[in-house]
């Protein structure tokens, strides 16, 4: 029993004193540089373009009856 306690204690100690887990601190500046290039705005706009198109279609469908009514109703100036 004592052996098991010592073994568990030693294993825990070993795990605690091991190297910290860290997410590539060395390459982080290179990742940041890879994201914030001169093409950042172009990439962002191109990437968002399909979403913007779908959003416009959805909003257009939502307001379609109001737009249709406005276009087909006789103007006050007529």
């Amino acid at each position: 029993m004592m052996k098991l306690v010592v073994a568990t204690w030693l294993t825990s100690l070993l795990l605690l004193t091991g190297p910290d887990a860290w997410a590539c601190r060395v390459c982080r500046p290179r990742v940041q540089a890879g994201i914030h290039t001169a093409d950042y705005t172009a990439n962002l706009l191109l990437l968002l373009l399909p979403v913007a198109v779908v959003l416009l279609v959805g909003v257009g469908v939502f307001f379609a009856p109001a737009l249709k009514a406005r276009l087909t109703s006789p103007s006050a100036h007529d």
Partner: protein
Amino acid sequence: MTEPLHRTPLIAAGLLMGAGLGGFLDGIVLHQILQWHNMLSNQLPPNTLVAAKVNMYWDGVFHAAVWVLTAIGLRVLWAASRRPDVAWSGRTLVGGLLLGWGLFNVVEGLIDHTLLGLHHVYEYTEDKLPWDMAFLAFGALLLLAGWGLIRAGRRDVTPRTAYGA
């Protein structure tokens, strides 16, 4: 005089939510689980840790955008649910969802895969065109299915208020 019933608010809600959820499905299944492509994987192949992490950033931007699309769709659905002049139809809503998913696939496929070449559906092959075309064809099928369901939903003419909600 009774106001005519409208269907477009429910179709718009379904369309926006369907497109958003379709975008999530693309991101989760094709980007993360199968790892067939990333947003910029044709421009910056993820063959180093740095390149993979840069692609991961742009995948995150894409996910944020489709999250906004889904949230707006939910808001439109809420607005539609409170209007007495909106026909409350499961077929119309599901049709809108499929229409939105299909529209997203077709628009994203045409712009990102075919026109701009930001990425292709399956990057790990020499001939990427069949995969891109299959993606577009699937989108077109979804559009047809959605359109069919929306047409079938024309027969549902009960407003939500009639259900005592």
